[in-house]
């Protein structure tokens, strides 16, 4: 059954929206939570009008699934980062070439030689968006190196954490 968030849950999520520069997206919307059989607590953001339909026993999903809550921590989904890529201007990112793009779609990590551009403030363990040459979101990664070394040839410099192929793999996994 879908429910409203507790005050604490709300705070945790709003903080994350703020951190990634998409706080304005929350306006006129509310967060709701559904705890599925596998104990995953999915967080959805819905337009306020949808409240009329969402709080029913058979309700399974609504609006956009922006992430999960695990042990008081918000784990954003690829949908969340899609919003970041489109609406925010305060995030770290790299731009990869066609070869890098293909590898990411299969969930593979990024080699330094695939990176065409990297934000200046990347440090080891920075979470960053991986974009293609048209600045479209391909995935989310964790940097292994500082910006100055991130283009190093022949070694993985970014670990892919999430990618847009997640949709397809999750879907196939469910069949």
């Amino acid at each position: 059954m879908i429910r409203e968030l507790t005050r604490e849950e709300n705070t945790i999520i709003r903080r994350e929206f703020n951190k990634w520069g998409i706080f304005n997206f929350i306006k006129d919307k509310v967060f709701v939570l559904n705890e599925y059989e596998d104990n995953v607590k999915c967080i959805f953001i819905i337009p306020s009008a949808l409240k009329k339909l969402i709080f029913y026993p058979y309700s399974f999903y609504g609006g956009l699934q922006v992430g999960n809550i695990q042990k008081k921590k918000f784990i954003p989904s690829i949908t969340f980062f899609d919003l970041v890529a489109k609406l925010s201007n305060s995030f770290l990112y790299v731009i990869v070439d066609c070869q890098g793009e293909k590898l990411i779609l299969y969930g593979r990590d990024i080699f330094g030689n695939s990176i065409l551009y990297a934000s200046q403030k990347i440090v080891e363990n920075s979470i960053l968006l991986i974009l293609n040459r048209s600045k479209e979101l391909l995935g989310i990664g964790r940097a292994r190196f500082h910006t100055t070394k991130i283009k190093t040839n022949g070694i993985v410099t970014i670990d892919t954490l999430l990618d847009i192929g997640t949709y397809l793999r999750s879907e196939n996994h469910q069949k």
Partner: protein
Amino acid sequence: MSCISLPKSEKSQELATKYNFKEWMIARYLTIVPDTEKFLDYINNKVPNQYIRINTLKIDIDTITQKLLEKDFKLEKTPLTEVFLIKEAKFPLGATMEYLSGYYYIQDLSSCLAVESLDIEEHDMVLDMAASPGGKTSFMAQKMNNRGMILALEAERKRLRKMMFNLARCGVMNTVIWNLKGEKIMNYDFKFDKVLLDAPCSCDGIIHKDPLRKNTYSKETIQFCSTRQSKLIESALKVVKPGGLLVYSTCSLAPEENEFIINSIIKKFDITLESIDYGIDSLIKFGNKVMDKSIKLTKRFYPHIHNTAGFFIAKIRVNNL
């Protein structure tokens, strides 16, 4: 509603042998399908057409078509501006960055025409009664610019995840999914401006995409489906606002699942059938059964004529209940 058997003939025997179909099916197709032999040739030999529907919630049509052209896709326009026929593709349609980003949805033109017939407006409250895997739902959301409200029902729990991922990929925001049988919606106090009932059916309209259906197709399936469809459409009619629209569709060619269903509600409810700009007129006679003449306003689509799945669409205006 029981399945009508038609007399077999030399022709039905000949075609059943030639195309490896059950003879009772051919006997029916000879009455239902224009240019039957061409139809059988088509579904036995032709690689099914693939269509994509551009998801304008995520990208505009010119940008995505340009991207696909750069990847050596050959696209052909269709009567719907958002929908393109794939003439040639160098990559599997479901494995491109553009697909994964939700820029397009692989969806038959006939399914899109069912949504088109709903005349959806931005702030409508819409019900999709048998929604998984979510292709029509996401097209509706697109037509509504993610505004208004869609309630999407899906009875089978195992189909919900797939639908969830499809809606997420397409950036659909204005939809709530309920894990509920369509028949039960009338127990809730909701009235909708538009209702889409793409009813569960025997699916012989997609035999060319899934030839195994040739073997599993049976008279019992038709009977089972038409009984369920009667219940579903009556439930649907009870939740449409007066003046609202119900679109009923199936990918079945069986009149028992199409014209017969519409004929039965014409007598029972205060409704008017409205014309649809696509397809060809439906049957007003099948076997010994003669139907209301207005049934002609409902439309049929055939693979060998329309390059789509075999499909049926009825557009029903609800006057008063």
